[in-house]
């Protein structure tokens, strides 16, 4: 009886603590959602309850409108920014995998005692922030003639995706039993063949995790995209929305909020899906 009560209390405390905190953390996104579909008259009236659609009705959508959401797709380069972001992200992830897969594997398996130190050294590179590097890179990119082009971002973004991905991949490869490869080697496979035929297929979930998180680093990046790219059509989503959808002091809050909510929710769903694997790779590299 006492133990049932205790387990009930435990369950209850989980919801009582996590519920309000989760709502607090996610509130800005609820706020974006509500705002996106508001009529101007409703939004810009300080007497209205801002959490709902006014006038308040049971069929709340009758007080709402989709016209501001349609606006960003029809009358702004929003779709171009999404395409730009996806193109840059895809190229950068491709380059990153080509470089980080072999490096992560070598650091996990082949290089023995100094492997750990080399792995940590590579990781420290990830701690060198873009805010230290954008000042020399900006004139350099201009000198190379690739400023205001997506190419500049494709060249520079691997500077943070490669160290990050190498570290994660190293963690994943360490969790794969060595015996599997040894068996392939005994069967006459070369080491490279064993890598491609045995190790990479087993690591596919881990590799996919790296793809998701490296891609999201690219979507997140702001300062390079902000200083390298100047024309509206070449922006990525992170710089396009704050720089182009705000005109002077005029804010189109409904459109702005819809534009921020859409990529956020997509990325959060992906994060949630791959979180357990991310934790495994992130810690598998160092703290076991």
């Amino acid at each position, binding site marked *: 009886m006492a133990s049932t009560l205790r387990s009930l209390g435990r369950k209850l405390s*989980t919801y009582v603590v*996590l519920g309000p905190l*989760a*709502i607090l*953390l*996610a509130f*800005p996104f609820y*706020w*974006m959602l509500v705002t996106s579909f508001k009529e101007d008259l409703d939004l*810009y009236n300080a007497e209205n309850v*801002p959490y709902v659609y006014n006038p308040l009705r049971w069929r709340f959508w009758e007080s709402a409108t989709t016209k501001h959401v349609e606006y960003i797709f029809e009358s702004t380069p929003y779709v171009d920014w999404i395409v730009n972001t996806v193109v840059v992200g895809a190229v950068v992830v491709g380059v990153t995998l*080509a*470089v980080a897969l*072999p*490096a992560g594997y*070598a650091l996990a398996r*082949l*290089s023995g005692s100094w*492997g*750990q130190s080399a792995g940590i050294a*590579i990781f*420290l*590179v990830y*701690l060198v*922030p873009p805010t*230290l*590097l954008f*000042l*020399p*890179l*900006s*004139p350099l990119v201009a000198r190379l003639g690739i400023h205001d082009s997506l190419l500049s971002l494709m*060249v520079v973004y*691997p*500077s943070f995706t*490669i*160290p990050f991905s190498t570290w994660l991949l190293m963690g994943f490869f360490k969790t794969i039993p060595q015996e599997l490869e*040894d068996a392939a080697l005994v069967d*006459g496979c070369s*080491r490279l063949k064993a890598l491609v035929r045995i190790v990479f297929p087993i690591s596919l979930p881990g590799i996919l995790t790296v793809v998701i998180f490296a891609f999201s680093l690219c*979507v997140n990046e702001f*300062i390079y995209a902000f*200083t390298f790219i100047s024309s509206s059509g070449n922006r990525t989503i992170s710089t396009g*929305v*704050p720089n182009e959808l705000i005109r002077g002091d005029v804010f189109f*809050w409904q459109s*702005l*909020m819809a*534009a921020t909510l859409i*990529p*956020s929710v997509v*990325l*959060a*769903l992906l*994060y*949630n899906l791959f979180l357990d694997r991310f934790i495994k790779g*992130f*810690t598998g590299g*160092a703290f*076991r």
Partner: protein
Amino acid sequence: MGTDAARSRPSSKPWRSVFESRRVLAPALIAPAVVFMVLVVGVPLGWAIYLSLTNAIGGSLTGDWVGLDNFTSAWADDNFRKALRNTLMFTFGSQAIVLVGAAILAHFLIRDFRGKWFIRFLILLPWAAPVALGTLGWLWIFDSLFSVINWTLGHAFGVIDTNDPPQWLGRPNLALLAVTIVHAWRIMPFAVVIFLAGLASIPNEVDDAARIDGATGIKKLFYVTLPLQLPIALVALLFGIVFTAADFTVVYVLTQGGPFNSTQMLTTWSFQIGINSGSLGEGAAISLYLFPLLAAVSVAMLLFAKRAQVA
């Protein structure tokens, strides 16, 4: 070991046996990563240091040698010292919030319960959302006329004057508080994830042993769980310090360093001087003032990794 088996096999092509050797294969696999990082991180970092010692102006890659002039003239500027102070308050203030919040969240989130997937999704949102976009949401929350916070405090609870509500981004101290809270909000889920990883790595035997010894509830929390979580909390803290001290986006989108430079950080100030004012050399010097902090964090990480390796 694998290589021995491979080596003892008679090989038909001589270059193949070269690639089977650890001594050749490992460096060959790591080399592209190292070369790339030297090119896109090492060279620009070196260049930033060089630029900080010259009088280079916007758009140029070189300048005349001026020694440490940029560092001293930056230091002499009141705005710089404000930026330095702000960076420290912003960084350590937000990390204090993050550590407490993440410890609580992770403590409960490690359990299994109904609806965990959805609650985890809500908690992850601030981290998953692109920084600039999530921050735009806060720009609207802190709006000078239609702030939802002010509506709630004023109309719903009546604790503030609705005719003269707080201007979250318009008053120096409030603005600094606002950017600090927004950054804590953004980093929190990341710290939760690291804490979860740390909790997951505590073996079940520890739990059992604690139960046999009669440690439950608060006692267990203070004598068993928290001490075991200390190393992982340190990792979360070190990451948080780097990400926050080097952040540009949150402050730029919310206040652009205003009002009256009251939320200027080292990063936004170096952007202001280096890009907007075109004093590339001095801008580089300002951003390099971050370097000691980052170096200290890196050294701490190295020491920590070494200890973890020994244990």
